[in-house]
Each structure stands twice: as C-alpha cells, then as structure tokens.
C-alpha cells in the first residue's frame, strides 16, 4: 500500500460517529459521557505527528517488500545450514537423569554364574528347536512350558494378519510373573523376538529371557509384575501381542485373545542377541511414527551398563571414533576422494560420527519405522528400547547381559509415576550427549517461516500491482523531490479469485489420493508400469488444463500462479511447523524436500524453461516410485503397523510438489 500520503484524515473508531451525534438530539444519554472520556484520553496522549508515523510505517513496509526475497532465502539457507550444523558438539549438552526416583546402578545384582549356566542350557534347547525345524506353534508351546516349569503362569497366542502380500501367521509365547507384594496394577515387559533385527535368529536373546524368568521368580522386591514375551518373527508377533493386550474386547479378528493379563505396562526392554558373544550393547530407540521413549530410560541404561554390567554402550551398532575398530567405520562415512588428512582429523571424525548417528535416527524417524521390536510399544505409552548385543568375538556374554538387565529392571522398579513429559523431545548424538529441543527445532521452524514469508509476500503481490502513474506532480512537489524526472509509479488493487486456485489444490490432492490407492493395491507387482503412468496422466492433465487456459480477462484480477503459489507456500509452512513437534525428522525431511522446491517455483515465459521446470517437479513428485523396495516396505508398514509415512507422502508431499509444478507450468 504505497503512495505518498499528502494529507491525513484524522479519524478514530471512537471518534467519528459521536461528532455527528452530538449535533442530533440522540436518545442515548451516554454519548456525552463517552465524549468526555474520549477527550480526557486524548489529553493524556502525546499528540505525535501522524503523517510522519504513517510515512515511517510505509517505509518499513516498502523495505520489507523490497528485501522479502533476500529475507526468505536467508531464512531458508539458515534453516538448512542449521540442520547441517546439528552434529557440531557446540550445540549439544551432556546427558543426565531427570527423575530422582530412578537411582540407577545403585544395587547389587544377584545374577550369577549359576544363572549363566541355566541360560546356556536353555540355549542348547532353543538351538535344537531350530535344528529340528519346528513350527512356530510348537516352538511357542515349548517356551510356555519352560516358563511354567519355573512356576510362572504362561500361555501362547496365535495370530494371522492379512496384508496385500499375503497373510502373516505366527504364535507368541508369554508368561506373567505377579509381583508377590503388590496389587499387580503395573507391569514391565522383558521381551525377545524370534528373529533379530539383523535378520538372523535371536537364539541367545530368547534364552536370556527364559533364564531371567526363572531367576526373577526368586526375589520378592518387585513392585511391578514382570511380563516375559517371546514374540514370533521380528515385528508382527509383538504387534499382535500388544494389540491384543491393549484391546481386551478384541474387535480385531486377526489376533487371538490373551488368556492371562496384568496391569498397565510402563517399561519394556527388548533383548536382541544374535551373535555368540558381544563387545558392546547398542541402544535402538525409534518407534512407530517417530515416537521415542523417555530419555531417562536410555540414560539410566547407559549408566547401568557401564557401571554394573561393565559393558560400554553404543548408539545402534556405531563404534565411537575413539575406539579402535570404529575408525574404519567412520572413515567410510566420508567420501573416498577427501584427502586423508581431512578424514583423519579428530574434529572431522567426531563430526562424522555424530552425523552418522543423527542420520540413522532421521531415516528411522522420518519413515516412521521402528528400529526394533521395542518400537511397537511406544504407541501405548510404554517406554521401550532394544538392547542390541553387538556381535563380536568377546568379551561379554550372558553374565554381563543378565546383570545389566536385572539392574535396569531394579531401576525401573523404583519408578513411582510416569517419567517426566519434558524428556521425550531429544536427539541423541552420542551415548553421553544429546540435542535439546531448543537447539534443533529452530532449524525447521526457520524453513517454515521462510515459506510463510514467501506465501504472504505472494499474497500481497496477488492483491496489488505496481503500474506507471499518469499523474503529473505539481510544482511544489517537484521542488520537494530531488529527482523530478523519475517515473511515477502507483499501486492498484487487484481482485483475488481463490476458486481456481482451490480447484488446483483439490485436484492435486485427489491425484495424490489416487496414487496412494494404486500403490496399496494388490496388483502392484505385476503391472509395475501402471502405477507410473496413472499419476503421470493426472499431472499432464492438470498441467495442460491450466497451461492452455486463456490469460485472465481483466488486469484487475490476480493471476492464478501467484495465488496458487501463495496458498501452496502457506499450507506447506503450516504443515512443516505443525509436524515439527510431532516428528522432527519428518518435519526436517519435509522442510528440505518441500522448502527448497516450493521456494523456487515461478512461472516463466520461455517454453523450454517452463517444460524443464515441470519435468523437474514431476520427477520430484514421482521419482520415489522407482525405489520399489522402499515403497513396498512403506506400504507394509502402513497396512500392518499403521505407519503414516506412505499416506503422508502421497497425500501431502506429492500434491504440494505438483502444485509447485503447476505454478511453474502456467503462463505468468
């Protein structure tokens, strides 16, 4: 709203009308009083020069308008750089334990070599199960019997979950040890899945659970029931068991009911021990849809493992740079063409190590994928992690693992209430340091702010256009203005017809929906081409429909691409900032994959540029379909575990990129 303000009408919403009323004989006597109050207020206020104020305001607005592009690109760049800076150690703080009640690593453990011996015997039995090639039902019966032999009530559960690629069948075994001195309203879970997250068999994990059950029976200091679960397969077994546990009425026909149950589960430890011995214990924490366990659980476990178990802790199976076998692992993180003196530099190594941890976390969290069987617990408000015994030639075995698990359980046993709500937002970068929400969230919020500024800027651009002014300045003003010959410009308002823009938005989202329906279909594998072609048809249809559209009839209406871009950017910004509190990695992914392409969409007069841009956007929108493995996995996650990533990509990401494509494809 530029234009010189030559004069000012003094006007106030509390003023104008009363001046008229005082003339007429109004029926309301209050007017006089209001008038008097108004005059009093006016006396109190310093009477500043309003015209100067308006001019100043306009100058600021003009400056913002002028540097808007710089501002939003600056914000975008800052946001992206911030994301790159996350592994820097300056942003991070050391881990600590927030909850007083936990008291980790302050107990004597009673797990001794006798228990280790028992675990070894269980291992022989379990190995023979594998050798004899028993069915899952037979295995489960064996486990349940072993639990029962220890004097703990046990049972099995069958399930069959239908998916697009066939039915998943299996049987879980579980046992519930009721704490002898409490009411049994609370419980903790110790679990092992039959398959390890490495893909092998989790024989030693299962043996540990069986042996722990016998061991824990002998102690009376438990304040929570202990549930032992040996779930079939890797994720689906635990999913079936948990959904049956938390839906007692069992509306879902796919999973069998549980015959025995306990109270509310607070914590779960999932044991994954695929090798024959281990050197480190790795922590896997990511759950479905980016949920994380409370950080206190991880921190307590780290303290206990190091002090009680004597086992160093890793994130995932990433060795630290200070450790000898890890140097190669971290060096391989950097491209080989980098000179050795850079790759070997200590700070670079450290950065690389942290970046590797963050990246792996981002991939799990953004995809909403569980990094182990523990990830299924989080949706029921259960804090859970997987203890991964990193396969190695030694030196640790059942003894260290048993002690660590026992002590961790004692610590969780101390809990009186839920862990603090503030400790769910973090990014762990090394076992002993993490990023607080304040140091990572701004990166994505900056990108979202950049998009929001862009969108609002486009909105203003849609409503106002600068044209040359025919008005000749008067003599007085010629004197006042130093450059009288500069061409006068003025702003005129334009109509914003949102309907067309909304139609494009709705169409693109429908296109996204149709893609989703197509890739969820069972016939996906056989006619691979079809699912590439269908959306392409959509996009070309949409692009042509609007590219061939005649230009707006009048200059008084805002052009479609500007409006569309405004809506597109505002919606994307809202989406990114809202997602950032729910699942930061996903928000970061969206910030990069939406923030950058959407910021650079613009209509062009030259046909080749236009076509190239459309092609780029089409590739961005549909390129991911070529990664058939990932797509299949995402669809499986959605159908079996209810992970939102696949629908989100189809219904949110694709339409937004398509809209940006339409913006670029339209005539300016």
């Amino acid at each position, binding site marked *: 709203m530029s234009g010189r303000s030559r004069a000012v*009408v*003094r006007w106030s919403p*509390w003023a104008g009308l009363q001046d008229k009323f005082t003339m007429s004989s109004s029926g309301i006597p209050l007017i006089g009083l209001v008038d008097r109050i108004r005059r009093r207020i006016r006396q109190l206020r310093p009477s500043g020069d309003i015209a100067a104020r308006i001019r100043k305001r306009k100058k600021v607005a003009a400056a913002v308008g002028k540097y808007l592009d710089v501002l939003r690109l600056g914000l975008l760049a800052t946001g992206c750089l911030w994301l790159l800076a996350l592994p820097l150690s300056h942003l991070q703080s050391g881990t600590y334990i927030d909850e007083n009640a936990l008291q980790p690593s302050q107990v004597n453990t009673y797990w001794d070599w006798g228990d280790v011996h028992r675990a070894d015997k269980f291992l022989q039995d379990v190995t023979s199960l594998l050798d004899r090639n028993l069915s899952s039902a037979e295995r489960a019966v064996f486990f349940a019997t072993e639990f029962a032999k220890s004097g703990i009530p046990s049972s099995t559960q069958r399930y069959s979950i239908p998916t697009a690629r066939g039915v998943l069948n299996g049987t879980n075994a579980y046992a519930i040890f009721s704490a002898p001195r409490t009411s049994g309203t609370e419980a903790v879970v110790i679990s092992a899945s039959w398959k390890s997250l490495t893909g092998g068999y989790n024989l030693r994990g299962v043996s540990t659970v069986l042996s722990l059950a016998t061991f824990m029976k002998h102690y009376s200091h438990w304040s929570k029931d202990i549930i032992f679960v040996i779930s079939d397969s890797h994720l689906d077994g635990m999913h079936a068991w948990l959904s049956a546990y938390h839906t007692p009425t069992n509306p879902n026909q796919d999973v069998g009911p549980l015959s025995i149950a306990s109270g509310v589960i607070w914590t779960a430890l999932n044991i994954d021990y695929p090798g024959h011995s281990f050197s480190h214990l790795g922590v896997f924490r990511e759950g479905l849809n980016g949920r*994380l366990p409370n950080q206190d659980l991880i921190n307590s476990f780290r303290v206990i493992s190091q002090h009680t178990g004597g086992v160093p802790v890793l994130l995932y199976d990433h060795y630290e740079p200070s450790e000898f076998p890890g140097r190669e692992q971290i060096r391989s993180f950097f491209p080989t063409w980098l000179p050795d003196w850079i790759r070997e530099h200590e700070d670079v190594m450290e950065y690389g190590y942290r970046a590797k941890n963050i990246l792996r976390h981002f991939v799990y969290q953004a995809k909403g994928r569980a990094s182990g069987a523990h990830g299924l617990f989080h949706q029921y408000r259960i804090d859970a992690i997987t203890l991964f015994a990193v396969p190695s030639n030694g030196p640790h075995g059942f003894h260290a693992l048993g002690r660590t698990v026992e002590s961790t359980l004692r610590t969780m046993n101390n809990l009186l209430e839920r862990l603090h*709500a503030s400790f*769910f937002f973090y990014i762990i970068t090394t076992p002993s340091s993490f990023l607080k929400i304040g140091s990572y969230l701004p990166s994505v919020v900056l990108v979202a702010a950049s998009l929001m500024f862009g969108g609002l800027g486009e909105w203003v651009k849609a409503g106002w256009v600068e044209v040359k002014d025919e008005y000749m300045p008067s003599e007085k003003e010629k004197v006042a203005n130093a450059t009288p010959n500069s061409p006068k410009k003025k702003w005129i308002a334009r109509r914003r017809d949102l309907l067309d823009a909304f139609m494009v938005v709705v169409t693109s989202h429908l296109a996204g929906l149709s893609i989703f329906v197509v890739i969820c279909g069972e016939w996906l594998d056989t006619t691979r081409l079809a699912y590439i072609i269908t959306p392409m048809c959509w996009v070309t249809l949409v692009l042509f429909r609007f590219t061939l559209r005649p230009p707006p009839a009048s200059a008084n209406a805002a052009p479609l691409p500007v409006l569309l871009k405004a809506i597109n950017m505002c919606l994307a910004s809202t*989406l990114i900032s809202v997602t950032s509190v729910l699942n930061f990695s996903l928000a970061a992914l969206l910030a990069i994959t939406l923030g950058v392409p959407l910021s650079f969409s613009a209509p062009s007069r030259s046909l080749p540029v236009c076509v190239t841009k459309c092609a780029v956007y089409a590739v961005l929108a549909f390129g991911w379909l070529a990664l058939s493995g990932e797509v299949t996995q995402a669809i499986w996650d959605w159908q079996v575990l209810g992970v939102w990533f696949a629908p989100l990509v189809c219904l949110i990401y694709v339409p937004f990129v398509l809209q940006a494509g339409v913006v670029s494809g339209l005539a300016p």
Partner: protein
Amino acid sequence: MTFEFALAVATRTVLAFSPLERLLQDDNQLSSPLTSYSRLQEGVYLFRHGIDPYAGGTFRHSPLSLSFFSTIVPASRIPPALLWTSLDAVGAWALVNIWRSRSNIQRSKRDLRIAAIYLLNPYIFLPCLALSTSTVETTLQLLTLMFASRGQSSLSLLTLAVLSHLSLPAILLLLPVLLLLLSDPLSHLASPKPFPQKLSKCVPLLVEFTVSFVTLALASTLVAGGWGWMRNTWGAGFLLPDLTPNPGLWWYFFTEMFDHFRPFFLAAFSLHLAIYVVPLCIKFQHDPLYASFLLLGILGTFKPYPTLSDPGLFLSFISLFPETYPYLRYPVVTALLHLHAFLLLPLFHHLWIGTGTGNANFFYASTLVFGLANGSALLDYVWAGLRVAIGEEKEGWVVTQE
C-alpha cells in the same frame, strides 16, 4: 438451491450415522462439561431412576434439556443423530433467512454459499457429529437473530429466553436483540445514524422477555424439584467447578490459580464478558445486527465453557457482511492463525492425553493460538465495520486510527 441444500443435509445425515460419533463424543474440544451428550444421558438416567441429577457434579445441563430428553426425545442412538442434523439444517436455514432480511431480498445467488459455509464449517459440524448440545445453542442463537431480523418480537424473545436457560452468557445478546427488534436488520454500516427509536419502547419487550424467562425458570424448578439446578447450571459459568480442558481461555488459568485468588478472578472474568455489551451497542447503534455479530465473537472467545461451535458460529456469520471485506486489514493472517489452531488443537490434545509425550501446557498453548485467531478476527471486524463508513480511500490519502 433447495436441491443442493438437501444434498448437503443428506451428506451430514450419513456422516451422523458413521462411527465418527463414538470417536468424537467425548472430545474435549467439541463438548464441554456443560454441553456433553454423555453427561446429558447420565442426567436423564439418574432422573429416571429417582436420583436428583443435580446432587452430584456431573450433570450441568439445564432442566429444560432434562425434561425434553426424558419425554419427547428418547436419548438412544438414532433420534438424537437425526435431531442434531436437523438442528444444523435449521441453523443454516436461519442464517440464510437473516441474510435475506439483511439484504432485503427474497432469494439471491449468495444463499447457497452462505448455507454451505455454515454446513461445511468444521467448527460447526464436528460438534454436531459429537452430539454436543452447543449445536442446540448455536441453532437457537441463529433463530433468535432470525426472528429479531424479521421483527417477530415474541418468538425472538422466547428463543432468547430458552437459549439463556441453556447457556447463561447468551443473555448478553438481549440488548442488541432489543435494538434489532426496534430497528431493522438492513446494513447501515456505510451511513451511521443515531438510533431511530425511543429507547423507552423496549420496556414492554423487556417485560415480555422477563416473563418468559421467569416462566421457564419455574418450569425448570418444576422438573428439577427444587432450586438446586441453578447452582449446577448457571452457577457453573461463574464458579467454574469443573476444570475439564476445553478450547477456551478460562480452564488453564483457573487450574494454576491459588485458591485464595479464585473468587476475585472469577468475578473479574465474569464481569469482563459483560463490559463489551454497552459500548458495542452504542457504537453500532445504527446496525444492531452487526453488534450482535461482534458480541457472538466475544462470547466465542471469552466464554467460560466454550466449544468449537461458539467461534464457529461467529465465523459463519462473516458471510453475512460482504460490505466489510474490502476494509479488513489482515484477513489472511487471521485465516492462517485459524489454520494453525485447527491443526494444533487436536494435535497437542493428542500429545498430552494420547501419547503422553506432552503436558497440559501444550494444549494450553494451542488454545492460546486459537484465542489469538478469534481475537484477531474480532478486532479486524470491529475495525472494518467502522471503516465502511469512511468509504474508499482517495488517491494519496490515508485513513488512520488515532
């Protein structure tokens, strides 16, 4: 027009029978302790079994609702779903009628758009699907203003009396409704003039309202069998006994309040609601319908137990005042705030109640965003409503507020 209207209503009927209702029924944002259908059912059950429903703290509906749902409408599954859908349809019809009275025409192209904006407004149809009795209040509010716009004083005042019984803060609408009855609903925003009638004329109307109101109070006492209902229904708005979260601004404030400050702040909050009435009515005496519209916005923002349908009604009303659109200063900011609030409210509620990774502050923050969105809409419409009178800016001139 009729066909499209029927289509929209039919879609809602289908939705009303979907399993959505069970999911939404006890949602904190859609039904407050004063409007929850579950609580209404509980009250009716207690009443049927000879227990005074007002003896406990769960039932806070008006005795009028109690008598209505224990006699005419059985509180089972299907009749309420139909009733609520038809209430919304009636609301849309009333809104269209207000528009017709205001523009003084029988039928216009805008009718359908207005009805659609009302029926498709998520703030309106979600509480309706949740069977929140705030839908009833919304409809009654619309009917009151419709009758008032048509000059049907008895019906209008009676509707307002019933409405005030269901939700006491609505009584603040009395003054603008009286002014509306004495004048006309046409838009005079562009040409402000003093109120044309003598104010003494509203005395008989006031008497009529008082008579209806008192009669209804007696009817309430008859069904409740005592005066205890007043404390539990009207008193709840002043004493805030139930701090169940809602999208309004009161609950968190009073959750954190030390007990000895409570009475003072309760009084301050309650009075605060009332102070807007007279200034708005004086300032907009030339257009009482616009004053009622702004008051609806104030109620939706600052009411003790609001649900989403209270601000929803205010937002739906916007479609009646197209003459103000060119003078709005920041409509897109308001729209974006509402978009954020609409996404954040359920999300933070879920983080707090569902996953447990957030706490009450999260939800409170989202209600603040929501309050901000409503407040910005309200302020912008106060500005625009007054700004219309000045007309278009001339070249090189600027209108400013002092």
